[in-house]
């Protein structure tokens, strides 16, 4: 009975896997903090199945390049520029997993789960991109002003060591990041100041690093009037886009920059990424308009060896490059050994700022969270009703065998939900309906098998043989019929969009899970049953 043991092991491990997938776990969610007026991260415990917009509420937007004011030459590049811009902005939304995706050639889909205000969403997504180049705080004016700001904050009652922060000793303000934690405290008295406690000096002048878990705290500090008042004249603070790891900890960059741009996106005409033939560096080249060229030439002449931040919509993109020489007309940004994809991304940012693509909304859906919750409730109620019905019918009609099928059905439900969770598929309202329906269909395989077993018993075969033959003969029908259904579901998935895809995915997962439970699990149950009662003459089927 080796094969039986092997079957049991497979079933139990599949069960464990499914249950593990469905255990509630902590998920970090960015939510809107009404008090501070900005986003903050919170952890929520929930079952890790992602719900579609129609179930949790939210906004779906499909955008295309607006050609009403003249044709746009290359819509696929235009939409990629727009995608890059929208990506940097989605942080402004209170959304767990925002979706920004180019669909097909020239369409951009933005999905914001949980967002309630379509007007705000559209405004933020459609806002024209703004690109500017600014010199970083080369004279470290901000660093010098920090003790003053800290003192102001302390006077306003903001303490340095906020709860949950790293111990004061490690919160050192060092100029050299390679020796983080060992340098001297320049931040004043014994207790580090509130703001300087969360800032670490970065690699270049004006760059500061904030540990990721303290970003929201830093944001709320920066929003205080004391900080605004204490900032040196002509200096502004801007967040970077990326999270970078130093050691094992993720950091977000904060830049102190001159408040006046040396040039804006209007003055750019072209940008492209390439690999330098000589030193194999990734580089981005850009061209300037005549006017921009004159301005840039003059400004870069004054700022040789300074760092220049590239800012899109108020966020610093990548690490500011150094100005090696006076740049006139055509510039080149050398990313050294960084991968070419990074250069391509930067080129995209420059193009996005140079040629903002006006977007037109071609499709929008907004579903209120209350409607979504109603749908979940109603869908679950219908599902429970359907399951109860199927259980009743199966047990009444097939008795003990029916009970085995019901046990297999329970596993089917677990497998399907576990599969949805494991592969990160999204559950939509039609998906929920598809799931309820597939419960009805899931018993089909069992019905086919049981009917076949009954027929074989009728032919006068022994119980063992009848079960054997029943499974064997029912198999071709089960496989052929499920394959065709799976094929149509696959086509639905490939051709459909949004909710329909959700439905197709649920149906597909359901078909696989039902084959597994009906064929493999029920079979094993029968084998166990027959092994325990080898002398069984009549089968409860």
């Amino acid at each position, binding site marked *: 009975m080796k094969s039986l043991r092997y079957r049991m092991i497979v079933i139990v491990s599949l069960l464990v896997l499914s249950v593990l997938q469905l255990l509630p776990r902590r998920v970090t969610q960015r939510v809107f903090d009404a008090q501070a007026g900005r986003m903050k991260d919170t952890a929520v415990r929930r079952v890790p199945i992602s719900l579609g917009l129609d179930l949790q509420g939210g906004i779906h937007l499909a955008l295309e390049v607006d050609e009403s004011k003249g044709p746009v030459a290359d819509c696929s590049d235009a939409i990629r520029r727009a995608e890059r811009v929208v990506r940097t902005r989605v942080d402004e939304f209170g959304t767990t997993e925002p979706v920004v995706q180019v669909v097909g050639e020239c369409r951009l889909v933005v999905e914001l789960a949980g967002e309630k205000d379509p007007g705000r969403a559209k405004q933020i997504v459609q806002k024209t991109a703004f690109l500017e180049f600014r010199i970083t705080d080369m004279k470290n004016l901000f660093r010098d002003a920090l003790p003053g700001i800290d003192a102001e904050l302390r006077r306003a009652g903001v303490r340095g060591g906020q709860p949950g922060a790293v111990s004061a000793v490690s919160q050192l303000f060092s100029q050299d990041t390679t020796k983080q934690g060992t340098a001297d405290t320049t931040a004043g008295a014994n207790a580090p100041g509130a703001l300087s406690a969360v800032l670490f000096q970065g690699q270049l002048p004006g760059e500061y690093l904030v540990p990721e878990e303290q970003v929201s705290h830093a944001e709320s500090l920066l929003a205080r009037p004391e900080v605004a008042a204490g900032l040196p004249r002509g200096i502004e603070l801007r967040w970077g886009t990326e999270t970078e790891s130093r050691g094992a900890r993720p950091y977000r960059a904060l830049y102190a920059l001159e408040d006046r741009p040396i040039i804006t996106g209007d003055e750019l005409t072209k940008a492209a990424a390439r690999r330098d033939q000589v030193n194999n560096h990734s580089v981005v080249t850009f061209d300037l308009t005549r006017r921009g060229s004159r301005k840039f030439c003059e400004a870069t002449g004054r700022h040789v060896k300074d760092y220049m931040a590239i800012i899109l919509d108020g966020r610093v993109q990548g690490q500011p490059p150094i100005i090696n020489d006076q740049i006139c007309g055509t510039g080149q940004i050398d990313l050294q050994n960084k991968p070419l994809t990074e250069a391509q991304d930067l080129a995209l940012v420059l193009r996005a700022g140079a040629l903002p693509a006006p977007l037109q909304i071609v499709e929008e859906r907004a579903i209120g969270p209350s409607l979504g919750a109603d749908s979940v409730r109603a*869908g679950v109620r219908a599902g429970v009703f359907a399951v109860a019905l199927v259980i009743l019918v199966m047990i009444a009609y097939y008795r003990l065998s029916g009970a085995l099928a019901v046990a297999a059905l329970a596993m089917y439900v677990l497998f399907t939900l576990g599969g949805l969770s494991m592969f990160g598929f999204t559950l939509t309202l039609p998906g*929920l*309906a598809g799931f309820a*329906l597939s419960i009805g269909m899931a018993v089909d395989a069992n019905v086919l098998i049981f009917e076949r077993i009954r027929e074989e018993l009728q032919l006068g075969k022994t119980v063992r043989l009848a079960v054997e033959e029943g499974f*064997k003969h029912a198999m071709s029908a089960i496989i052929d019929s499920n394959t065709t259904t799976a*094929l149509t579901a696959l086509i639905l998935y490939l*051709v459909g*969009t949004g909710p329909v895809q959700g439905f197709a995915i649920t149906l597909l997962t359901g078909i696989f899970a039902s084959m597994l439970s009906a064929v493999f699990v029920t079979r094993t149950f029968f084998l166990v049953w027959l092994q325990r009662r080898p002398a069984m003459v009549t089968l409860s089927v």
Partner: protein
Amino acid sequence: MLRLFAHAQYDFIGLRRWAYGLSALLILPGLVLLLVRGLNYSIEFTGGTFLQVEAARSVSTAQLRAALEGAGIVGSEIQTFGADTVYAIRARIGQTGDASTQSVVEAVGRALDAAVGADAYRIVRTEGVTPKVGGELQEKAIMAILFSFVVTLIYLAARFEWRFGVAAVFATAHDIAATIAFIRYLDLEVSLVVVAAVLTIVGYSLNDTIVIFDRVRENLRKFRRQNLYEILNLSVNETLPRTILTGGTTMMTALALAFIAGEVIRPFSLVMAFGILVGTFSSIYVAAPVLLWIERRWPGQDVRGARAYAGPDFAPGTTSGAVPAPATGGRPKAAV
């Protein structure tokens, strides 16, 4: 033991002409109506704006309409949606002019402010689609159905043979026509989700047809002497308990969804329930007779199962011919 239709010997195929009549009676007026009035497409297909509004108290739709027209949106469709205080407002492009979603939402807001008061309503769902996207969706839906036909034909031709494929696709086409007629009779709104229901019916109908065809394939090998008419009847009768049981549970699920799962999913569930019914019907009365018709028109060795079925992995087994004469007593004696 509880057994339904255990030794059924109904002459299903003999009644096929009645069934044709029934199908024609169901489908033809529906299609005529379709040609005259078209389908009630959702704004996903026509382009326009859809709003679902929950109000604190009930207002007459006439009152809402008046308020909307006052706000400049003429020709919109206003219906209650499930409950008395829930309204569905559709402003289609073409009927209401080119009003943008934004302006419709604002107009509805103003109209509701006037009709029920500023804080006494909530807009719970907004959909806005441009005609271009709607047209694309229509194209995609038709593509999906045609594509699924092709794939089915190929699959069945490989696993059975081409006659079975043609018969199954014919039955499926019948189901789609019948379902469209049904949608037309009830004047259900054709949304993307309803299209998904139609495609699921394609899957279900094929599923059901194949279970019967699988038995036909097996019986053709088992009883080489009998003619196809008898074998079809035998196969339909043998699979009848399964047809009733599976069809029944799935149908009840669909009905449960239709009546419990709420307004949003109701058209989908109703279409599904009808599709299951018609899919079961067509497996018996369209797929099987078409197979018979093809066999009579183009008699061939293949349908007789003379071509040895090569597929030892999960085949019913070419050895099944060795099973002694059936003791089912279920062999129909119907005359041709």
